[in-house]
């Protein structure tokens, strides 16, 4: 950090910068504290939306104090651990896939070829699709085992194999083939995969964009030198390109982790009531009636988010201020 020039007004005065930051900080503080405070309060009391037996529980009040009862209830709920596992499975899979695909595609389109501009436009498009449309489109029109493209493709392949079985010479070979079964993406586990597929489709362009921009600033002379030294494509990639991309990869992971930990619309649309859930969705389920339990789960989600945040801070905090 540089020292201010003598006589410089703003630099010597610390009040003005504070003042300029105040509105943003204050707004975000309110946005964080009020809901968090209410969640914390509700998580320690019995609070349900409907109860015929105990109508006094339907209004939030300190006289319904439950201590850590809601937390215990949540911890004993069989869905809780599953939801955490599933959250992590979904987030980690998406991160893994988008980074791998992102790097590969960025390297692929990093050099000039005919129509590069158009390919870039095509590639970037999924990123602009709203999550609700993304989910509706994929689960109905693409992944549906009967009406979706998946169903059509499976049918087509089965039909082709069936007709080849009657072919002369090679017919016996194809009669060994099994009939393909379309996969239903509405079951608990498969709908998690459906969510991973659709979000990966949407966010790979984001990774590609960032990696592509970064690759353009790669040191070409270094590469030329490596080529002259006889480095193959793989070692160029491994020892020059990949290290160059480490910082952008960190950014991609961080931004995506922030967005995907709170994934909701996709889960809701794809897996309505089939048991596939992440932590936000479990909270939503509790919140249909048991606000106390929903709030306690919310506090657990905040803790999980903080653990991830600390992890991310370690990872990219250093490079941030450079």
């Amino acid at each position, binding site marked *: 950090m540089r020292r201010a020039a003598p006589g*410089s007004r*703003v630099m010597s005065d610390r009040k003005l910068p504070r003042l300029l930051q105040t509105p943003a900080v204050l707004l975000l503080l309110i946005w964080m504290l009020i809901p968090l405070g209410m969640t914390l309060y509700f998580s320690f009391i019995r609070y349900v939306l409907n109860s015929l037996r105990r109508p006094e529980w339907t209004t939030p009040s300190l006289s319904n104090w439950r201590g850590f009862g809601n937390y215990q209830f949540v911890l004993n709920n069989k869905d809780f651990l599953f939801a955490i596992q599933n959250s992590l499975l979904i987030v980690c899979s998406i991160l893994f896939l988008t980074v791998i695909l992102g790097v590969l595609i960025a390297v*692929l389109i990093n050099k000039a070829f005919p129509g590069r501009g158009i390919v870039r436009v095509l590639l*970037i498009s999924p990123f602009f699709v709203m999550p609700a449309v993304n989910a509706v489109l994929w689960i109905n029109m693409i992944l549906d085992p009967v009406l979706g493209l998946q169903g059509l493709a499976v049918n087509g392949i089965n039909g082709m194999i069936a007709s080849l079985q009657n072919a002369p010479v090679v017919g016996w070979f194809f009669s060994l083939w099994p009939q393909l079964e379309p996969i239903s993406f509405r079951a608990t586990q498969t709908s998690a995969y459906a969510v991973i597929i659709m979000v990966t489709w949407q966010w790979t362009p984001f990774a590609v964009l960032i990696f592509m921009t970064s690759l353009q600033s790669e040191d070409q002379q270094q590469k030329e030198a490596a080529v002259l030294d006889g480095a193959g494509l793989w070692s160029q990639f491994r020892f020059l390109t990949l290290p160059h991309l480490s910082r952008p990869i960190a950014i991609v992971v961080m931004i995506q982790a922030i967005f995907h930990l709170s994934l*909701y619309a996709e889960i809701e649309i794809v897996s309505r009531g089939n048991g596939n859930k992440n932590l936000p969705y479990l909270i939503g389920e509790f919140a249909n009636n048991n606000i106390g339990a929903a709030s306690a789960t919310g506090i657990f989600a905040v803790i999980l988010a903080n653990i991830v945040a600390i992890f991310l801070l370690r990872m990219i905090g250093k490079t941030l201020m450079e």
Partner: protein
Amino acid sequence: MAIVAETSRFGKLSRPVLAWIVGLLFFFPIFWMILTSFKTDADAVKPEFLLFFTPTLENYLNMTENYDYWRFATNSVITSVFATVFALAVGIPCAYAMAFNPSRSTKDVLMWMLSTKMLPAAAVLYPMTFLTKSLGVFDTHFLIIVVLMLINLPIVIWMLFTYFKEIPKDIIEAGQMDGVSTWGEVKEILIPLAWGGIASTALLCFIFCWNEAYWTVRLTTTEAATLSKLIEGNRAPEGLFFGRLSAVSAAAVGPIIVLGWFCQKQLVQGLTFGAVK
């Protein structure tokens, strides 16, 4: 350059072919949606890969009747535009102060801001609904604008910060020597210099606002409902109405995709969050 440009046979032929295949694959779902939107509902659910059919505009013409599209679209435009403007109005001074007068806590403040995005919205949904209803702002444009602004403020400040950091301090200091007021500095020096960065930040903020699908769905009923609400509200029983659903979906994402295409260059710069120098 010549050596690096294409060293292998792979590059000459396979690269463009492969790149085109990847590009088309990624675009295909959107293409399929647009194609389906021109089919009649009967054609849309035919169990065959129907590429050639008699196109119909019926789905688009019926959109207003079936879905009241324009009301939702107007709400989306209003809320996204105002939320973006307010986010910039609050974000620019903040990022300015952080970039040119960083203190020891600046890094932590930035990280904290970003961490507010990690709070699970579902946990605070009920308190928020309760609060906004008792304040009488539930289902108003005002509420949605404020919420969208707050959700995107951390990203906006972060992006602006990385842009402002790239502007040489000397230029700002020279302005101070000449006795320009702080407001003058921002208006005469900072904004013109960082115009590209501000534009791409605004663009990304607008896209995120437009696509937001949690609060906009749950804090509205009719008055301030946006296109996300329209899609969410119509998704379930529409299994047999792929044509209609595609049309309304295409109309919901179309404007943003086109906007994105036109502003591709700015967006690419803006998205890097300071990761690329």
